[in-house]
């Protein structure tokens, strides 16, 4: 899998700080799991957090005794499984598989428009944002839309293209509200992606606007 679209540095920082809204963090983690470049970039962002933590005036520990480690240390196998990436193409990345299971084929899709389906993913309790899978038949488009806040899209299968470029499996589109785009799926394979947004997308044109309340987009 060759990845050519990556996370924005600001998104990586927010992820490292632990402040990226939950829905977006799932997509960011899913991309990072398959992308060596973003993993390296993340280490830089986490080092910033470590330096800031280290610079805080230390708090006083008031507990009478330090925690006592027990024999559970070996609960973690001394040799973790071999490196996660590269993952087989078309597999569900682990952070997402935790929420939807491994099979994209077992998803119960709901129609959204002709040749367009979606599936809303429940977040852990208290998780912020909107997370859903989107499936486009070959050559189908999502109505032109802008975003209220951030949107992260990770391609899982097939590909799509828009004014920004072509996005294949593993590529992530890291967009903010300045961007309006109209993705069209690959003419042969179509496209399955996972989309996270802070708030629902806003569509141009009357039809999507009429449909939006019904489909929750």
């Amino acid at each position, binding site marked *: 899998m060759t990845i050519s679209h990556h996370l*924005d*540095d*600001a998104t990586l*920082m*927010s992820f*490292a*700080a*632990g*402040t*990226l809204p*939950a829905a977006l*963090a799932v997509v960011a983690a899913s991309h*990072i*799991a398959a992308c060596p470049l973003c*993993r390296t970039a993340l*280490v*830089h*962002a*986490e*080092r*910033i*957090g*470590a*330096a*800031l*933590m*280290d*610079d*805080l*005036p*230390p*708090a006083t*520990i*008031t*507990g009478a005794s*330090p*925690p006592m*480690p027990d024999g*559970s*240390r070996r*609960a*973690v196998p*001394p*040799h*973790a*499984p*071999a*490196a*996660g990436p590269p993952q087989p193409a078309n597999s569900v990345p*682990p*952070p997402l598989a*935790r*929420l939807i299971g491994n099979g994209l084929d077992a998803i119960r899709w709901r129609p959204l428009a002709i040749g367009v389906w979606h599936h809303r993913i429940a977040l*852990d*309790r*208290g*998780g912020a944002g909107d997370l859903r899978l989107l499936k486009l038949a070959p050559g189908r488009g999502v109505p032109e839309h802008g975003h209220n*806040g*951030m949107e992260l899209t990770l391609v899982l299968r097939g590909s799509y293209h828009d004014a920004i470029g072509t996005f294949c499996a593993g590529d992530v589109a890291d967009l*903010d509200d300045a961007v309006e785009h109209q993705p069209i799926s690959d003419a042969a394979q179509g496209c399955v992606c996972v989309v996270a947004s802070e708030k629902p997308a806003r569509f141009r044109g009357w039809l999507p606007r009429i449909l939006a309340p019904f489909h929750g987009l």
Partner: protein
Amino acid sequence: MADLLRRIAEQADASAFRELYQVYGPRVKAYMMRKGTDAATAEDLAQETLLAVWRKASLYAGDRGSLTTWIFTIARNLRIDLLRRQAPWQELPEWRLQEPSEEALPDEAVAEKQRQSRVRTLLAELPADQREVVGLSYLEGLSHSEIATRLCMPVGTVKSRMRLAYQKIRKGVEDLE
């Protein structure tokens, strides 16, 4: 520090663990309290963080960031767990902890220490507006939108300041890579 971790990993040395807790416990507690956690919970989380280090010591790969960075990420995840029960990236160790610690190169540990102290210097040298958004994100635990609201500015401005800070810091450690 790396030596303490080695003693924990190889000999399950409880005194090494206590030393490690004395160094990092107060820092992790301070980080938790800064994020708005009450003192008692913050101390519990500091204990949990260090106990996780104890359990996973043999998986720590020293070439993947310093011990402080590793402890920071554990603390961060525990804090998120507290807020929303489960962090989506909690199960990421398949890449981060993929190699046993005995293979960590001493040179790399030294280099990482240098990078860490360079980052602290670079953070202190950031323009005030960039340092402010970085602090609000990492220490106050605000999302970019929340920072934008707090500072009455567009999210785009928050992000571009974050980006500038990141790029400056990353570039600043380039010669130590």
